[in-house]
């Protein structure tokens, strides 16, 4: 084993050499180019984080009171042009500069709770019932009486009403299934909503409801933008028009998804790059938020193709007498196999609306190359599931409707974090979330579960293979009573690698100093005796220094490359204290 350890250090040295191989002048020129073109140079963006452990925080206090921001408006058409022709080149140029890890990561490679994200299932395992309940805090709309429409639907492509009030005076957005594809939109919406809530995002409360046409009444103030672009008073004919195109259950009722109006005042959507000027709490450029970078892999798993600024929302909320913006994900009707009221087309999930790279390959090969998804698109096996498959699914090649800067910035550590979240769901929990879609066809439900589980494994494998899948470092005691550092190998835990062919190597060094204390060593098992480490490292240990223990796994499976995680330890009063860890 020492031979392999030597090879490791050589490989490390080789990597460092390669990183410094670009002439300084060229790097300078490149930086200047980035500075000019992106307007957001790496130097200007960097918050100046020093090497070493990150802050040991579980709450990022971005919920301080702020003056009420103005409402922002956005449009799909502008999003398309800006993302495709403006932001994508800028993102490309921006990424030419120094790679930056996500900013909002704490000492344990996790994210503190914030107005964007709350650690839920993967850190605080939820029960099957909690996953199935999602964000819902009550039983759903009270349909004992009338459902009063307050506003016709003004945006989006699906069938429904903008706002409607139930008998309990709660206000909901109502969305129906199309007559051609019953259950498709509503099931996708609710299932994805449950997952995104459990994953930690702010998601709306949603229920599947069944309404009789006679229950629907039109409020006196209800206005509608008709298909001719004119705003007018809503009439019964408009309701009939919506219902005419909607799927109807055999008992005559209409199935819909009711999405509870978000708390607070609507302030428009958030973007996947930069910060919001009128939100002083918003200091982390969105492309450097881990939850938005990692959302790429999470969206890939759930095939949430329509993730874009228009399907997000900032609301100005009051909590504990503080007023601030909370950030939501919305509108999951285009997740899984659905593209709103029809199944996804073959392209969705594989190509942006306008995808220069995807167009470039057939262009350069005179059409001889055509991607597999275009030549042999996956079939729509069940109308209520739409086009949803796992065979062609390749997590890192998955694409949403538009290029999003934060997605482009996803690095290996972000992918690992997202994979951890994805793999935290058991089959039972996946089934529970899918059951919330209330699919009437058992075979369709089973297909959806199976496909989700297959995609889950692909997404998990990807995240665990691009980064060291070693996590959950903690200090404990050895049998002899000494200090030990224990960890989990998630690749083993999830069955991606076998224990027989796996062993680990580590190096030990003082933070900020070159060279190792002692020679790199290898071991089996998931625990390192720190007492032995002290003896082995020798007298060089400074009693107050911070040390770096770098660990990597070596496996028989060639797909898993050797990747390192650095664990920071402080020596205090003769004992080690865990300061955190960081992935290379």
């Amino acid at each position, binding site marked *: 084993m020492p031979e392999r350890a030597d090879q490791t250090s050589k490989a490390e040295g080789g990597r460092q050499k390669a990183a410094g191989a670009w002439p300084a002048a060229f790097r300078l020129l490149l930086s200047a180019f980035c500075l000019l*073109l992106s307007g957001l140079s790496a130097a200007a*963006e960097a918050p100046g984080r020093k090497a070493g452990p990150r802050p040991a925080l579980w709450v990022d206090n971005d919920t301080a009171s702020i003056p009420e921001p103005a409402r922002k408006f956005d449009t799909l058409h502008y999003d398309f042009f800006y993302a495709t022709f403006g932001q994508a080149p800028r993102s490309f140029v921006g990424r030419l500069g120094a790679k930056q890890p996500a*900013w909002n*990561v704490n000492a344990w490679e996790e994210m*503190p709770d914030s107005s964007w994200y709350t650690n839920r299932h993967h850190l605080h395992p939820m029960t099957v019932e909690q996953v199935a309940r999602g964000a819902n805090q009550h039983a759903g709309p009270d349909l004992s009486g009338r459902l009063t429409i307050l506003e016709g639907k003004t945006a989006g492509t699906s069938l429904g009403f903008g706002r409607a009030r139930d008998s309990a005076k709660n206000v909901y957005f109502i969305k129906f299934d199309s007559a051609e594809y019953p259950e498709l939109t509503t099931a996708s919406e609710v299932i994805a909503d449950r997952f995104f809530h459990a994953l930690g995002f702010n998601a709306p409360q949603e229920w599947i409801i069944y309404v009789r046409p006679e229950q629907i009444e039109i409020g006196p103030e209800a206005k509608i*933008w008709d298909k001719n*672009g004119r705003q007018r008073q809503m009439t019964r004919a408009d309701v009939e028009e919506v219902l005419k195109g909607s799927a109807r259950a055999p008992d005559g009722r209409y199935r819909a998804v009711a999405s509870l109006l978000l708390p607070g005042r609507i302030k428009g959507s958030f973007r996947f790059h930069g910060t919001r000027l009128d939100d002083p709490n918003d200091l982390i*450029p969105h492309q450097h938020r881990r939850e938005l970078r990692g959302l790429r892999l999470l969206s890939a798993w759930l095939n949430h193709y329509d993730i874009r600024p228009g399907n997000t929302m900032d609301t100005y909320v009051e909590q504990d007498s503080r007023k601030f913006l909370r950030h939501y994900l919305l509108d999951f009707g285009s997740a899984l196999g659905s593209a709103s009221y029809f199944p996804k087309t073959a392209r969705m999930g594989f190509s942006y609306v306008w995808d220069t790279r995807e167009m470039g390959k*057939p262009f350069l090969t*005179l059409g001889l190359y055509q991607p597999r998804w275009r030549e042999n698109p996956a079939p729509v096996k069940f109308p209520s599931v739409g086009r949803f498959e796992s065979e062609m699914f390749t997590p890192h090649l998955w694409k949403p409707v538009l290029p999003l800067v934060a997605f482009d910035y996803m690095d290996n550590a972000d992918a690992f974090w997202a994979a951890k979240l994805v793999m935290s769901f058991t089959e039972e929990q996946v089934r529970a979330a899918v059951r919330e879609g209330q699919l009437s066809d058992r075979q369709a439900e089973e297909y959806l579960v199976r496909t989700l589980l297959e995609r889950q494994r692909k997404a998990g494998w990807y995240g665990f293979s691009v980064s060291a899948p070693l996590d959950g470092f903690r200090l404990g005691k050895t049998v002899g009573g000494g200090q030990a550092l224990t960890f989990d190998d998630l690749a083993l835990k999830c069955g991606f690698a076998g224990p027989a062919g796996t062993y680990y190597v580590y190096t030990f060094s003082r933070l900020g100093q070159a060279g190792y204390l002692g020679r790199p060593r290898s071991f089996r098992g998931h625990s390192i005796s720190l007492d032995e480490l002290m003896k082995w490292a020798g007298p060089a240990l400074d009693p107050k220094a911070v040390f770096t223990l770098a660990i990597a796994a070596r496996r028989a499976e060639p797909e898993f490359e050797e990747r390192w995680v650095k664990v920071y330890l402080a020596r205090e009063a003769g004992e080690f204290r865990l300061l955190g860890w960081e992935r290379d």
Partner: protein
Amino acid sequence: MGAPVPRVAAAVIALLLAASALVAQPDPIPSTLSERVIDVEAAQHAKKIEHSFRPWQAPLLPFLVFGRVMEKGFIAVDRNHLLEKAQYYMAEHDRGFKPLFGGLGIGTGFALGVEYYRNDFLRRGGRIGIPLRASTLLYQDYGVDLSLPADSSQRVSLDANAHYRVRSQDDFFGLGNGSRAGDRTSYMLQSRQFSFGPRFELTRRLHFNARFGYNSTSVFDGKDARFPVITARFARSQVPGLRNGARLWAGEVSLVHDTRDVPGRPRSGGYHRLEAGWRQSGDSNDFGFWRYRVEAERYLPLGSRNRVLALRFLGITNQARGGSAVPFFEQVILGGSSTLRGFREFRFYDTSGVMMSAEYRYNLNAYADMVLFVDQGQVARQPGDFSWSGLRTGYGGGLRFLNQSGTPFKILLGRSNEGTRIYFSLGGTF
């Protein structure tokens, strides 16, 4: 007094600095911010940089301004539902006006117009349209189009139309395959035309049409000041119809067989048309001829619907009757974006013509096809005069932009021995 250049530069720099100061507004920083996972001061500094305009960004200023204008514009369009409104006014309803864009051919300038239409006119399925079009180069087209189904299944209908057209500056290079590109001249046509006839839908894919009509055409010197007028280079006696135009009675029958999967953007199937026509002077001019036209298009998928070989053949001959002549504007005209790409519009005139195209189309995405093409064609007095050596060849490639049902827009680059030409055209399968 300083030189103007430094003064302008100083003014620009001052303007940029002023703009920079205006844009770079400091953020209000909440006093209650407590512990954050980031270095708050550094992040606030980065945010200030992000939201401020710096002088070194001056080269980007036009893009920033353009981006802001686009953003505001798109939001205004969406919030006011202007696209839906435009769609409403461009779509057909029971009756009303709709805008017309283009439709006067390549090289006619930017054409705009309006059409009054009425659907279910006189009977169910009937339609009357009154289009009025004019272009920036003063091409004009005003008319009435009427279509009335004869039976309830709408398989037989009677079509009629009457138009007044002005083509202000079409090109003429001389008659024959050997005409020279350097002999480009300009002429103007003014025509009054009406026709009517039945249309039979024999099967879903097979149609039979018959037309009878009258066409009065006058010829004038063209309005294109860049080139000589037609009469300055060609004698009236050499070019039939140049002296007095032509007043022609016309009749024709045609049989159309269309098996294309999606006619506007076909990937398989074919289009075949056989036409026989007759023209006879309605005044003292001696014009009388038969016209025969054969047209065939085939679309062959090459192992995939994403790769298609499109083939086209077009053959037309006008056979003068008893020593009569064929007015030059009624002859076969080749050249341009729809017939012989790589050559100018209206490049070749003669009484007979043949043209072949082979086009390889491959799909780039749902909205665009790439195209590589070769066109060959020639004109001659008689079909017997056609020869392999007389074929004129153009080749090139480009992009076809697609929507669900058609090809609304094409950009093609064509090359021939007479140079390279770019074609922007609306609609059309080739």
